[in-house]
């Protein structure tokens, strides 16, 4: 679906036990790409929360269901500049995502739950959901702010 250079593709199962493996891998990847430490943690949190949502909502807690995670290095046009970024696409074959449920809750309402999507949106620069060919697709982009940018030709 996207251009850019492929960095990593993982085929996962919807098992909560696999989350720590994905977190470690994502952390290593973001460090290698040169993200600052706090942004590495933010990307790890977003990926973990997105996978948690897939396991809990799309697959309703069923384990052994397929999830595909693709990490690409892309260029994003911002203010006439080409800026490097990390694009992460998560795909599952679970239930259609209920948009109402994805709205999260008001932070002032101190109660358990409803924070995952808020964390994802706060952690990433772009968050897009779509349903395509019977699959839920979540695309997240994090800009590499500290990297050199080049003027768009």
């Amino acid at each position, binding site marked *: 679906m996207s251009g850019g250079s492929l960095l990593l593709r993982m085929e996962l199962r919807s098992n*909560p*036990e696999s*989350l*720590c493996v994905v*977190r470690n891998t994502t952390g290593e990847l973001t460090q290698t790409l040169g993200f600052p430490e*706090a942004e590495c*943690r*933010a990307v*790890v*949190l977003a990926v*973990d*929360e997105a996978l*948690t949502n897939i*396991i*809990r909502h799309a697959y309703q807690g069923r384990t052994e269901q397929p999830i595909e995670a693709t990490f690409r290095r892309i260029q994003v046009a911002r203010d006439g500049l080409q800026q490097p970024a990390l694009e992460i696409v998560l795909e599952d074959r679970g239930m259609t995502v209920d948009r109402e449920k994805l709205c999260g809750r008001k*932070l*002032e309402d*101190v*109660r*358990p*739950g409803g*924070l*995952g999507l*808020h*964390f994802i949106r*706060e952690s990433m620069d772009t968050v897009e959901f779509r349903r395509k060919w019977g699959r839920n697709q979540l695309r997240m982009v994090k800009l590499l702010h500290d990297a050199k940018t080049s003027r768009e030709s």
Partner: protein
Amino acid sequence: MLQISVRHFEKTTILDVSGDIDLASSPELRKALLRELRERRTPRVVLNLNGVHYTDSSGVASLVEGLKASREVGSRLVLFGLNSAVREVLQLSKLLRVFEIADSEEQAVAS
């Protein structure tokens, strides 16, 4: 893997937590907190998060549930030993000021 060890004192219980708190492990934290607060009615429960280097929203939800339980039974829930990752997540949730957070175990126990 999450590990929780419990130290009981006269009116205080300290839960030493280490490992990552996520979808797989947060039920264990929730269970330990609610056991101390709802079943044992411990007047003060102190959560040592020094060994926790990651928590997600399900971990935050377990803490919020613990906080609500403490208010219901008239106990206190005090946290200490928050590292950057845990602090950032509580900050993102706008919950840093909702929880009672101490700088050290001594302060948590003395407060």
